């Protein structure tokens, strides 16, 4: 059903979160669905909550040292795209592998006999490819400490709720506007009349708006919370320190599958992450390996 949703979105190209048809959403709420589709590089979510489907693309897994002959089909997906891709695979000896994901669009992996064959498939089907997609995405991202933020004055007046992110406990604690105003450092989340705003303090009178995911990582900078298993090539990040979508997407594109939620340790497990990609991701997040 979610494959139909992806096709529907591919035809619509863009829309609002509430536009998603209920009968194609399976059981999840639209926000989670959009977030997962964004992790899988099918759509991009704008800051105003609207979405736009990304063009079809091959996210090549690994570089030429690893072979570079498999790629994940990302972006828009319609019957026409699949037909072209199937034809290109037949011409160049490629193979389409489909992996089911629960309540999410299936992961389509193109396996070619060689990197040049994969490149030929991309050319014949007219679908651009991104070499070593996960690593390249991460390589273009600034570290969390330099993550974009907008300086702003402190919130004044009546607010509905104020929360502070605890670096030790890694969750939000009740706070007050006064504490937020007086704090020299820290991450605060303030509920105004109509929305939430996330402020990171860099001085008593200096604060900036920042993405909430990036803000949590910035607040927890240096924490030894990441687990890296080199043998199984898994990277584990606590759920409360979930990275910004683009970083998560880069790690997701290493395998093409959404991260598994380890409910025992309450962490995301990204699979098949190359070591150099994992190191780069750890460096960008500013966290340290436990």
């Amino acid at each position, binding site marked *: 059903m979610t494959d139909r949703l992806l096709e529907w979105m591919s035809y619509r*190209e863009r829309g609002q979160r509430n536009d998603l048809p209920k009968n194609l959403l399976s059981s999840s709420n639209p926000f989670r669905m959009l977030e997962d589709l964004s992790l899988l590089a099918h759509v991009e979510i704008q800051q105003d909550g609207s979405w736009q489907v990304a063009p079809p693309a091959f996210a090549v897994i690994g*570089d030429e040292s690893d072979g570079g002959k498999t790629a994940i089909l*990302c972006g828009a997906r*319609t019957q026409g795209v699949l037909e072209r891709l199937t034809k290109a695979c037949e011409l160049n000896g490629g193979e389409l592998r489909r992996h089911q994901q629960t309540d999410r669009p299936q992961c389509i992996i193109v396996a070619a006999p060689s990197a*040049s064959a994969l490149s030929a498939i991309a050319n014949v089907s007219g679908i651009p490819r991104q070499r070593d997609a996960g690593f390249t995405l991460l390589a*273009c*991202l600034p570290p969390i400490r330099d993550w974009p933020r907008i300086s702003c004055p402190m919130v004044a007046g009546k607010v509905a709720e104020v929360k502070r992110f605890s670096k030790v406990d890694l969750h939000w604690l009740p706070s007050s506007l006064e504490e937020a105003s007086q704090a020299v450092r820290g991450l605060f989340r303030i509920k105004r009349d109509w929305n939430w705003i996330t402020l990171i303090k860099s001085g008593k009178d200096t604060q900036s708006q920042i993405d909430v995911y990036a803000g949590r990582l910035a607040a927890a900078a240096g924490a030894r919370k990441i687990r890296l298993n080199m043998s199984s090539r898994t990277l584990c990040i606590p759920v409360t320190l979930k990275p910004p979508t683009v970083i998560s997407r880069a790690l997701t594109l290493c395998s093409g599958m959404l991260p598994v939620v380890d409910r025992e340790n309450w962490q995301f497990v990204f699979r098949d992450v190359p070591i150099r990609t994992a190191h780069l991701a750890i460096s960008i997040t500013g966290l340290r390996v436990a």
Partner: protein
Amino acid sequence: MKMLLTIGGLSFVIASIITLLIVRVVRQARRNEEARRKAEESRLKNEVYRRFERQERVEAERQRGFEEKRRRAAEEKARIAAAQEAQRQAEEEAHRTAEEKARIAAAQEAQRQADEEARRTAEEKTRIAAAQEAQRQADEEARRTAEEKARIAAEQVAQRQADEEARRAAEEKARIAAAQEAQRQAEEEANAAAETRGSQSALRPIVQKPTAFRDRRGGRRTVTSQVNDTPKPEQKVGVGMRQAEAKFRLAIDPIRRSILLSTVLARPEGFPESINVDPASGPTQAFDQARYDDIAAIWTPDLLGGEFRVRDESQQLEWLRSARAVHIFAATVGEPDFLSVSAAQLGSEHAIVCPEADVESIEALAIQAGSPALRRYPNFQGVPAGWSVLGGYFPSGALSSLQDLRFRPLDPGAEIRIVFIEGFEIRNAAFAQGHPPRVLIERMPPNCVVWIGSERAAISDDGGWQAPGWDKPGKHLVDVVPGPSQSYEIIADPAHGIGWETWTANPDLAPALVPDAAICGALVVCLQERMVVATEPASVVLALGARHHVKPLFLRPDKLAAVGVLPFAPAFLIVSSGRRRTEGKIVVLGNPETVQGSKREAVDMHWVAAVRAAAARRIPIYPATAAAKAVWNSAANAARRWRGGR
């Protein structure tokens, strides 16, 4: 000895001189060689500078070409978009026009049907009235004929009596005359017998036949002609009488708990401004072109029980409303309260006036028609005994079974409905290419014809209506003739068209490190067709084109990756961390378009140097396939050829 010494000294001097000369010559040759080498280097530098300038010019030209191409593409895209928009607007306009025409046609059809109904009703009334008039005339004629016959019979009797009397008087007169004649004859016989005994013939008596009287006028009188000549006052009233429809207006006042009924007389074309149907209340003026002012009606139990008819005798005008079992009133545009209608309509509110005995039957029929339960108005003023008013009749479907035909006006009738089911609906009535809807037409009479676009449609195996090209991208109109129409659209698969737009989805992320780069889905894209390449970090990372271009990649601040924005399509990456063979690698990027290279441009000196240097180190090649090694060896041979050819 001296001679030998002299010769030896001279030889030494000569040898020294020769040596000095040779040294000088060698030094001069070396100086000349150095000067030549410097001149050559200077020439090569100038050549390289010129090549760089030319390359920059070419690059700038390429950029201009790219910009021009991009601009043309954008213009073309805008033109296509404008054309599509114009096409869409035209189709929308055509669709609107068609809908408007269909709506006007439907309204005209409804009006025509109403007129036809009114005309039929009027004709029926006229026919009934004519029949009644004919019956009455026949009765009158029969009565007159009977009277005439009776009169003739009386006259005949009187004639017979007169004849009998005359006959009797004549007979009496003849008897008296005969008696007188017999007495006279007896006297004469007595005289003759006395006078002559021999003369017998002169004494025989004469008997005369009495005279019969005949009135010959009776033979000329014709009753028929007399009947035909008799004036017919009813016929004279009917001739030239113009008829129109009479309606009723029902006003329900729930606050005052009263119900009022008034007469609304239609004003067809040619009817006067003022009429006088009730001399007691004076003339009634025209309300508008279609009707006259309301005339308050006194709602008696008999008013709605039969035919309703009013006349303006002076202007030979007549309005009538036929008799019916139930009276249905509906809200009409531009009219207050409810006006009487001939039959119920789907989805409209109606009020029903009926005899009390029919209330339960009508309530059951209303539920059958999908209407909510009807409202009753008990004890409302104005409703005569034996009648009931029911409100809130909203029929939503046809009556499936109607036993009592008196209630046929309650049936809103069948409605043709065009339905699109299944298919992959992207927007309302817009479906994805390859997943068209199944077109169903409900309650369509057998005399209708279905068109999809300009093609006649037929029912397919799955029960849907299909026509040639019905599932092709574009807008399609399903037209039921006669009947409604509805359009749907098949949206073309973007993969078969211009595809999807690549845009700057995260404008503030990538440019922080890589200028002009943008992330869109899984792609890292760059403006002006440049490419972003990232690889593992090293002290030197060079990106090389197939036969030209060399560009070093820069290291991230965290030194965990090397990134670069390349104005060319890279074919190789040379990653080097030291001078040892194991401290470097050559990555063949394996793009079939770039590995061949362009043979038109002159060979790039820097590219040649970089390729020769890497080839000389014999560092490993990735991927470790024969094809990759062949590509690299081809490049290395090209670099060697140029060097050797110099």
